[in-house]
């Protein structure tokens, strides 16, 4: 069940380049009936650079925020950013399992972290606490032209022991949520392949090649847009698409959307309310054809087709997630 209240940690990216992610998350969570309580005076999670320098420093930067959340007495902390989530989960695991580490970290902190915070990505909250069925019930708008490749990025479900969410090799949570909105979801094989975003600035040539690979596979699976849950992936694929085209001689023009934006559109919100106007590669052409759900009789084949490909695209382990049984058994029969 969805909890009424979540502690919310937006993260630095969502204040900057990924403001549209932040905006769309807030819009849909409100629509789904959850209240987000801001983590007061939050600071940087520590993320990759700090981690590379020193585990204790990275742990302390993450734990500062966890300590704040701990005092908010909210059952769950949610952050849309997988990178922040990963930093929190790593810090939490080490603080709770390793006394020496915990002592070292708390020596750096003004306010000690005791280890009482449960963190979940916002995707996980929507997938597990809300569930695809509840999402379907909110859908008012169909998006017939969208052919989505769900791109999860490298750390949303990995390493499995830490992430404890979805399948590490073939995650399906976004696929199922989008399918619940009636979107045509493609079977995309590079769901977790790294796009290199972390090195966007210092190692551009490397990142462009990795990004090019991902976008090529997107095109191969017949998708016309990528749906992501990670601000770094979004920035990388969207912002650098022109750079990729220049460097690799390609001509991609693939909009990169946040899953929250797609859900928002399906719930009937306007593109501007979801920050779609901020993206470099415009999605206008793909979403122009959207229409109210009631009008679906006009083109029943679209809907049916969407369902069918969903079944193929999401044939994961049967019963591994709420609402999974329907699609999985359908796939088995097929």
């Amino acid at each position, binding site marked *: 069940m969805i909890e009424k209240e979540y502690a919310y940690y937006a993260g630095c990216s969502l204040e900057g380049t990924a403001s549209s992610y932040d905006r769309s998350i807030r819009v849909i969570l409100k629509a789904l009936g959850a209240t987000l309580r801001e983590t007061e005076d939050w*600071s940087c999670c520590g993320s990759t650079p700090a981690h590379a320098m020193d585990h*204790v420093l990275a742990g302390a930067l993450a734990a500062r925020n966890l300590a704040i959340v701990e005092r908010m007495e909210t059952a769950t902390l949610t952050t849309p950013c997988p990178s922040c989530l990963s930093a929190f989960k790593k810090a939490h695991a080490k603080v709770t399992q390793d006394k020496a580490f915990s002592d070292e970290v708390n020596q*750096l902190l003004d306010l000690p972290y005791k280890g009482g915070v449960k963190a979940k990505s916002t995707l996980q909250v929507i997938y597990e606490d809300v569930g695809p069925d509840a999402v379907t019930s909110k859908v008012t708008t169909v998006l017939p032209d969208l052919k989505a490749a769900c791109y999860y990025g490298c750390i949303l479900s990995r390493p499995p022991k830490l992430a404890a969410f979805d399948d590490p090799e073939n995650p399906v949570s976004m696929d199922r949520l989008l399918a619940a909105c009636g979107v045509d979801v493609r079977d995309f094989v590079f769901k977790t392949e790294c796009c290199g975003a972390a090195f966007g600035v210092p190692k551009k040539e*490397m990142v462009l*090649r990795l990004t090019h690979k991902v976008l090529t596979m997107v095109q191969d699976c017949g998708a016309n847009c990528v749906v992501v849950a990670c601000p770094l992936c979004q920035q990388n694929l969207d912002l650098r698409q022109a750079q990729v085209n220049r460097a690799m001689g390609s001509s991609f023009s693939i909009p990169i959307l946040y899953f929250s934006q797609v859900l928002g559109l399906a719930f009937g919100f306007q593109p501007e309310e979801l920050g779609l106007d901020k993206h470099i590669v415009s999605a206008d052409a793909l979403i122009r054809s959207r229409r109210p759900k009631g009008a679906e009789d006009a083109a029943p084949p679209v809907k049916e087709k969407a369902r069918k490909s969903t079944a193929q695209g999401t044939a994961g382990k049967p019963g591994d997630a709420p609402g999974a049984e329907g699609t999985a058994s359908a796939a088995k029969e097929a």
Partner: protein
Amino acid sequence: METIHLTGDTLNNFATEIRQTTGEDTSRCYQCGNCTAGCPYTEFFDYPVSQIMRMIQTGQREKALNSRAIWLCATCETCSTRCPCEIDVADVMDGLRNIAYREKRFTERDIRTFYEAFLTSLKHHGRIFELEIIARYNLKSGHLLTDADLGPKVMKQLHFLPKRIKGRDDVARIIKRFMEKK
């Protein structure tokens, strides 16, 4: 090619050091190469991951810590996810980076510059301020035009004034204490 004298590390000092830093037991690695096979960065590395693991097993500390590979690893966790021996390989790479950082070995200057720009921004604002990082990085690295081609629409998304948080002193203190301790 040099001859490696394996007798130099009979006590497994390096492997022990890695174990203490990361908690990972590299003796479990049987060199199947899965990490190398799955790593999206292998093509950019000077040594593939499995060979870095082998260097730890054979005590080649210098070579491992001076490798570029450890800086180019993005902690994407593919290796850790698929390792049949349940070694958190990404964590081992992280541990190697930690040691290299402590010993001021920076084989990849640009990455170091980027990290430091990141840390400076963090110290100043308590949060990350993207435009400042890019600016600072460009200045320090000498690559003055990095990402200047992203165009005006991108630039529009970056805040020109950093948000300052009350807790920025907290964060600065964390970093200060950390620096003092080291």
